[in-house]
């Protein structure tokens, strides 16, 4: 299946992916209205140091420990995509405790959220990829792990 991949060498640490993610998931059509003057809660985040940077989002693991650990049955794997039912999430943070990539974080209400590849919003394709000015984030097929 197609996943989001990053290329460290190309990432400029501009954090645009974080803004594009927050906007795509805001449900609003105006970026200024959606983001200006507000703390943002993106589902992708830029990590790195002074030398290297890269964006981290859900890896959609083949053997997802977050799904196995979720106490509410809110996380599931459908057609390879790890989805979250935010109505079922009770905000226990167990997924944060187990995800080896740090790919889950709460929204402003304490409900967990994660990258769902923009399949559940109006964007239709990952907004982080679409908006990356240096093509450091791509959305493509790289085969399944053996």
């Amino acid at each position, binding site marked *: 299946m197609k*996943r989001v*991949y*990053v*290329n*460290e060498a190309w990432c400029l640490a501009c954090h645009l992916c974080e803004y594009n993610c927050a906007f795509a998931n805001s449900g609003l059509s105006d970026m200024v209205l959606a983001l200006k003057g507000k703390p943002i809660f993106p589902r992708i985040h830029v*990590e*790195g*140091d002074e030398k*290297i940077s*890269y964006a*981290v989002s859900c*890896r959609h*693991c*083949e053997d997802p*420990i977050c799904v*196995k*650990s979720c*106490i*509410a*049955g809110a996380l599931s794997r459908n057609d390879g995509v790890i989805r979250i039912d935010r*109505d*079922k999430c*009770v*905000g*226990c*943070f*167990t*997924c*944060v*405790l*187990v*995800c*080896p*990539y*740090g790919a*889950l*974080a709460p929204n402003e209400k*304490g409900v967990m959220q994660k990258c769902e590849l923009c399949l559940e919003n109006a964007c239709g394709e990952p907004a982080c990829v679409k908006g990356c000015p240096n093509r450091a984030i791509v959305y493509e097929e*790289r*085969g*399944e*792990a053996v």
Partner: protein
Amino acid sequence: MKRYVVVGNGVAAVGCIEGIRNADADGEITVLSEEKHEVYCRPLISYYLEGKTDLSRMRYRGEDFYEKMRCQVLYGRKAVRILKDTREAELDDGSRVPYTELCLATGSTPFVPPFAGLDSVKKQYSFMTLDDALALEQGVNPQSRVLIVGAGLIGLKCAEGLAGRVASIAVCDLADRVLSSILDTECAAMMQKHLEAHGIRFYLNDSAARFEENTAVMNSGAVVPFDVLVLAVGVRANTSLLKELGGEVNRGIVVDERMKTSVESIYAVGDCTEGFDASTGQKRVLAILPNAYMQGYTAGVNMAGGDAVFDKAIPMNSIGFFGLHAMTAGSYEGELYEEKTEKSLKRLFTKDGLLKGFILIGCDERAGIYTSMIREKTPLSSVRFDLLKKAATTTAFPAEIRRKKFGGVV
């Protein structure tokens, strides 16, 4: 065709069912569910009282789960005995269910110490099952004064769940601190202060010497009046079905890394078991939800003829009260690295070149990176621990490993 019997209908049982179906589409699966509910997660019952979930959203799997997995569920039925020679489970109505492979996912039962005068208390509850929570919900009103015996995970989550529904809540425990199974003294004090700020009163180092109807007379001499009593002292693994067969049982049913018990064709998973703690190398009961599922899944695959191993169980907990989260994992041994602020406390424990455990209160961002280092026994010499001390980040890992993680399929 194989006939599988799963004794229990909790999360470990679901793991087992899904593990079986991953390897065997045809075998017959019978689930014995003592509770008359579809599978739900026990830890959700406090969130139910709190109003953060409801009966429909508490469903752990979809409405068509059993149908999709082609399971026959016998609700309200309990296995009373296993006949290993004829390979049958005998139920409480005298009927027998034959099996080729059987899995015990029997969980645990609240343990009630012999308190003097406990019989005189009219409104007393346990806090383990959904029925317990529904009964407690009926038993309280906005005027209720609640006394909870036990300041562990169950007792305190119950306190949080009830906080908006009752007049007052007092919690007592023989231990000198709250959450004594997962927090050290200083971390427990921080959490206690936070709970007290939300109106919970504590009697620690203390317990009820006797009950006189609506009054608890404490060991310390304190007198605590109450209307509703919740007993959350502890739990005991339900091991009797295997014990009666002469199977190996300590504090839980002893299982190997394939979840096999010492009795042929019988597996055990979840809170009823004693498994291997990878963080200490010791056998112990690790009654936590993620392990229950993973043990269950492992057993299921093996029961269906596959080969699965689960040897990465570690103690870990994520538990929050009134917005303050505590995350813990592994064991608290070795050298301590600490960071403290007014509102947060981070403790990392290292030994033999490995991260062995942590306690994080109010600073849980990306904590799973630490947890994975404990689980995978990542040598500290291979990472930039100076970075990791400050914050959990994948930047601390070697570039090669990082590129594999973020550039490939994991």
